[in-house]
């Protein structure tokens, strides 16, 4: 069935169209953060202004008329409230107009499942790394089908840590990709390394790195922060992988676009003769295709929500979301 998926949990308004798991369109408009951060109201305003255009472009790409759409999905959470509401309202409007069903999708489940789908992973251990989230997960079917959190950050997500450092270094654009570029050619400086079993923490690392600004070169700081943070993630993941006897690794979420992190996890996978899967950039950045993909599975299992019950949930935890199908 042709499903449209809407995503607006943070700085991206994304629209994806999927039919029987096949991605027909994946369009987006991104709020330009420049050297600053995200101001929720401003980002929401950007989403409202771009929603119509992105939806129209996606339909054109897919070669479909809006009335051919058979179901709609949107990101219920986790994310920033005012931003989430834009996809929610858009989805409800489309559903009401066309008389079709709506599925509320968990954003994290979207990243995980689109990666499993595209990289053909069956039962991987999952490293989900984004701005707000950093978690190690595995699918568990009791007491209900969901992604169980084996390990996660005690404080901030690894993406927020990198973004915050980028802002303080006055990099442009102020987010993780600029850290990755700046890190090239840097030397390693000792920084706080915090892993407790399968959990980890990033604030100590951020505080120390911030203190070094001006005293050490930007290259050295970026390189050392990346190496330390990613080594922590790899260590925790390797432990979880051995504990669960997994032979596949799924790397997803915004920070999964970092090639250094990809290479490190590939190395962990090689060590254990495991398969490593990480989707293309466009699916690790926030996108509508993953929402459409999950929504299609949900609607096929009759997991729809009545229009009056469609809400947003800023802290919608991944392990409270029921997952459907394989």
């Amino acid at each position: 069935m042709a499903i449209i998926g809407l995503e607006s949990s943070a700085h991206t308004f994304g629209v994806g169209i999927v039919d029987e798991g096949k991605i027909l369109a994946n369009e987006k408009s991104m709020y330009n953060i420049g050297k600053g951060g995200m101001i929720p109201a401003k980002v929401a305003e950007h989403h409202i202004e771009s929603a119509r255009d992105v939806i129209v472009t996606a339909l054109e790409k897919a070669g479909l008329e809006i009335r051919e759409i058979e179901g709609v999905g949107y990101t219920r959470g986790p994310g920033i409230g005012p931003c989430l509401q834009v996809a929610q309202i858009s989805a409800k409007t489309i559903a009401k107009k066309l008389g079709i069903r709506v599925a509320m999708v968990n954003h994290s489940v979207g990243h995980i499942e689109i990666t499993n789908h595209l990289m053909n992973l069956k039962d991987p251990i999952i490293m989900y790394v984004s701005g707000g989230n950093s978690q190690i997960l595995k699918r568990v079917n009791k007491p209900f089908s969901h992604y169980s959190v084996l390990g996660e950050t005690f404080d901030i997500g690894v993406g927020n840590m990198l973004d915050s450092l980028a802002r303080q270094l006055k990099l442009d654009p102020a987010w993780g990709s600029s850290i990755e570029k700046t890190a090239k050619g840097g030397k390693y400086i000792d920084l706080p390394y915090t892993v407790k079993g399968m959990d980890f923490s990033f604030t100590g690392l951020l505080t120390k790195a911030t203190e070094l600004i001006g005293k050490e070169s930007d290259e050295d700081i970026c390189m050392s922060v990346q190496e330390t943070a990613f080594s922590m993630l790899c260590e925790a993941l390797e432990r979880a992988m051995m504990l669960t006897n997994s032979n596949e690794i799924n790397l997803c979420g915004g920070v999964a676009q970092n090639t250094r992190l990809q290479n490190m996890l590939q190395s962990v996978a090689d060590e254990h003769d495991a398969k490593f899967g990480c989707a293309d950039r466009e699916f690790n950045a926030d996108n509508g295709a993953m929402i459409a993909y999950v929504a299609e599975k949900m609607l096929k299992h009759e997991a729809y929500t009545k229009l009056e019950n469609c809400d947003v949930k800023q802290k919608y935890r991944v392990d409270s979301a029921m997952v459907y199908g394989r």
Partner: protein
Amino acid sequence: MADNMKKIAEGAEAKIYKVNIFETDMILKNREAKNYRIKKLDEELRRKRTRMEARVMSRVNDAGIAAPRVIAVGKYSIYMELLKGVLMKDMKLNKQLMRKVGKSLAKLHDNDVVHGDFTPANIIVNRGRVIVFDFGISEISNGIEEKALDVLLMKRSLRENMYYEFIKGYDTYQKSRTILRRLRSIEERGRYQSRTLS
């Protein structure tokens, strides 16, 4: 390293071998190099952790708490006593045993040793004697939070009635009430609320 070594276990951090030196069977725990991280960080982590583990084990040995004795320490490796017995995770639990396990943790905490991975997989029982091992991520700390996490980890792997007995044993630790109060507040924190266990 001895050449008559046999690998018996592999963790994420270290490989465990059974070796025979001077006609004595013993355990060799070796922290292996990890290719994914840069050499400087890798060596620093392995060196620091080996040193910390040896320090904790010596403190535990000196305090007379049942644990493997340290025989020798290398840069990335520790030779220690080979333990005999059955793993707690493979046993049918009883009240008396759980009180002993609680007392073991009480003694560790009384000596400011935080185990870091206090689970039934890291406890061996030999003729009713409870022996704690794997101090790989242990530290010396008087932190209430860290100690509460030790209790939490054991709690997660026990049924309620067995946990009750465990706490009876743990109550022999003078500060147990403070630790258990913190445990409740940890459990009430958002991140742990809906965290499910597989």
